[in-house]
């Protein structure tokens, strides 16, 4: 997990890497798009925004080929997360959605408005419905050896 209090911090650390730069681009664009409508930037990421209550899940959700990036866009966001190996799997990994779901409990992290959190691929997370607000989910590829696509 990597928590960034501000987008400036995020940009300073990762802004030279295409997929992370596109992450900032997505955050700049996302509010101009219809709610709960997935869009993409290149092959790097997909992204959409919704109310926290809609983004919230009962189960922890983990991925293997994409990293979840949660960013509040109105109000704050609360994320509960844990290493996958400390959780109990409730279904098998699915290539079609790049998802695996878990139960258990983890650390609760508040993500401030203007910041974001990156969930690693050995972790799973879930959004807590409260506080009220809206947030963006950006799913960023783990591909990184080379990234020639648009």
């Amino acid at each position, binding site marked *: 997990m990597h928590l960034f209090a501000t987008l400036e911090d995020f940009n300073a650390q990762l802004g030279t890497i295409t997929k992370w730069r596109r992450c900032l681009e997505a955050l700049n664009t996302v509010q101009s798009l219809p709610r709960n409508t997935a869009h993409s930037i290149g092959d790097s990421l*997909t992204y959409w925004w919704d109310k926290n209550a809609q983004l919230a899940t009962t189960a922890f959700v983990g991925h293997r080929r994409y990293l979840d990036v949660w960013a509040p866009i109105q109000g704050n966001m609360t994320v509960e997360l844990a290493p996958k190996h400390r959780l109990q799997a409730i279904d098998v990994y699915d290539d079609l959605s790049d998802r695996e779901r878990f139960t258990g409990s983890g650390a609760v992290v508040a993500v401030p408005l203007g910041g974001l959190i990156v969930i690693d691929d050995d972790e799973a997370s879930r959004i807590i419905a409260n506080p009220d607000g809206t947030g963006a989910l950006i799913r960023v590829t783990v591909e990184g050896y080379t990234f020639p696509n648009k």
Partner: protein
Amino acid sequence: MGVTNDWENPPLTGRNRIEPHAYFMAYENEKLALTYSRELARGFMQLAGPWNFHLFDGPAAVPLKALSQFNAQWETVVIPHLWQFDGYGKPAYTDEGFPFPIDQPYVPSDTPTGVYQRLVSLPAIPQGSRMILRFDGVESYAELYVNGHYTGMTKGSRLSAEFDITDYLHKGKNLFTVKVLQYCDGSYLEDQDMWWASGIFRDVYLIERPHTHLIDFHVRVSKHGNTAHVAIDIVSAHAKRCTVRIMRDGKTVAEAPFKHGHTCLTIDNARFWNPEDPFLYDLLLFVYDEKGLAEVVSHKQGLTEVKIENGRLLLNGSYFKMHGINRHDHDEYTGRAIGVQRMRRDLELMKRHNINAVRTSHYPNDPRFYELCDEYGIMLIAETDLETHGFQDIGNIALITDDPSWEAAFVDRIERLIMQERNHACIVMWSLGNESGYGCNIRAMYRKAHELDARPVHYEEDRNADSVDVISTMYSRVSQMNDFGEHPGPKPRINCEYGHSMGNGPGGLSEYQQVFDRWDNLQGQFIWEWCDHGIAKPAANGHVRYLYGGDYEDYPNHGNFCIDGMVFPWQEPSPGLTEYKQVICPIRLSYDTEKQLLTVTNRRWFTDLSDIRLAANTLVDGTVVSRQELIPGAVPPGASTTIKCLVTPASIGETLLTVRIHTINAHPWCEPFYEIGAAQFPISFIARPAVSSPALPELEALDGEKELIISGHGFSISFDLIKGTIMKWAAFGRDVMASGPKLGFWHPHIDNHKREYRGIWKPRLLDVMQTSVRQVEWLREGRNIIIRIEERIAPPTFAFGMNATIIYAVHPSGRIDVSASGKPYGNYHDVIPRVGITFELPSACHQVEWYGRGPGESYPDSLQANLIGRYRSTVENMFTPYVVPQDCANHEGTRWVALTSRHGDGLAITRKTEDQLHPFSFSAWPYSCEEIDRASHLDDLKPGETITVNINDQMLGLGSNSWGSEILDSYRIRFDRFSFSFSLRPFTSADLASALTQLQED
């Protein structure tokens, strides 16, 4: 730069070119019109054929007299052609970069410039007639001179151009001269991923238009229940009156006069066009002058209406999905100058492989291609001639796309396409081009497109669908497409390129298809791409070498990135196309073993299953033991039915149900009872019990200092105690192996693994791992002899590797069980190509029989098309002729494989008795791994004295990440702990029973 050259002036898209209009032929009477023969059209004169030709070093080098005087001494070329393919200069291949310095709109002053000349004998022109010279494709800039007079100019390489040359013609011989520049300002708009080559590459012909004639027509169809309303607008010259007749099977179904150039007809009980039933009416337009009939124009008219309602594309009111492919024009001998027979075979191959849509990437095709798509039933994303990809290399792909000074050049390209092809039923949407960024000129193109036609407009780089009607991405991964499905937008979506088919692959198509099938807003997917762009170069020895980027010393180049099709350059399907056929098979089957019910689901969009017959075969150990025909009946689109399908499990062995799906209908693309797909279901498996071994003598062992010789009943095995492998194995008086088994993790590099190769494997030298044998020991265990080898397999210069143990158990019957296990050390745990053993057999053992997936090659993420059965082939025939040699011929799901001589002497490979339920994969090549890796072209490979056999416990999936999707997580194998075993069983006289019988020898 004081003078503006026409070829460096973007707003100037042509001079004296006739305004764009529908492509059609006109005839003197109705019967001639109904032949649809171009040759029988009024005054049609084909001018393709021999022309005199000379190539100059730039437009300034062309002397004026070359444009006005016939030069008999010039060489002759046969057009359509691309002059580089005839030896004038050389083709060059880049995927995206311009092959000249970027200085738009300027191009090199020495741009190759070809001048064509032909003397054409013409009769006197009939009074009042106009003579039109038409080019269907000239790349990239053409000036026309008739009898020395400048007549006109055109740009837009793959867009037709017509010139009225009447005023320059006379009775008798006329000199036609065409000056063609390879590059012009239009080249900045034509940076598609293909060979750079130029010339008159499509037909050129003369047409006579009488004083009174049709100029244009535009048909629009709307569906109201079973009734079609057909609105037609025409533009004519000097016509007294015009009428239209629509006929079905020779009978008139509607007829009407035009009033003020417009009419509307009604067809009751209309048979609407769709890709599954591409019915075409005869539409005849009659043009009259004062004396009577002046001409008849015929057009095969399909009735279609494409709409978007509630965010879904509808064809004639029905929801549909496009299972498509991106198609370039390509012929291995003539490049983009393809003949109509090549087009026809392309479409037949597509239909035979369940493909229902084509994106004309990335330019308009020959006008006859659209007619063929109407006829065969292929939906089109009709794309225009546009790609500015090379500007990406200077950091702004949209540099001219968002520059208003280029607007006319952009808009001209969509206008000419739509005006020419908008009467075709097969076109379900227009596409503004490819990979050109987004900007004001795209918006202008969109506006023009809708000014001319109501059908939806697509353009991939408008990724948020700011303008376009259909949102699109390319190479979005499986789970990304799932995201788009789970979170749909207000517009339909397609994936306009995916499944990059470079070399072996693509893998993962099945998972993609599951996602496409799952979500309604995903309405089409298009494989990249149809055909390899290899160029055939015959050699003196009769072989043909297929060339790609760099083979013409073209630099810079993108190598074999143009060898990325599902069809080989010689127009035969690759394994990737076979896989795609099965993945998109429109009939889905499932089987309930308990209830013995077969569920048949119709995934067609427009037609029922009344033509479908199912051949349900019961197989025991790969052999068909019973067959039944099942008839699903008229199951409507989207619906399912269940059929009782009784299968009796065999009392012993493996029972499978294979259902093959046939259509009983004949089509222009298939014969009756053509197989359109198949499915297979496991029924039961009851292991055959082991049999007591016959009385066999005890094994003898002779331990030399460096060698252990084991002798038994009719065989002897020499183990190298230094190298830890079989040195010599003789059985029944012949050599069983040419070299002993080696444990390994590498196979010949495949294009779809190049990201892994460049990013992680090559930097860590995984392709040159070294084996160091640390310990070899042997012992007797019961009646068997056990040899245990400890070895380390690791790359040079690094401190990681695999500590491996290989155990050979030699039995009195001559069977050898091989067990291998490994434990990695160091810091590498990422993906690897395979885990398996490799050995060599004498070249005589080239007959192959196996029980597993076949008949074609299969990989873990590409195996839907190859069902489990018992197959025979030869090592030579199993080797897939990828233009760039790479790993191939793998067969998943193998229960056993036997390689024998023609007399049936050979070696069978199985799992060990206790491990029968875990199939393996194998491949056999007439070359070594190193030879395949070294070869850059297929003809570099020369069969050796031995056969390489790979027995794989684990294989990495293929993916399609030569450009696109990485290997899905479930198909990734890693440098991790492993353990597996095989049995090697020599046999003779084709007595497979002896090899496959499980003997109790332990």
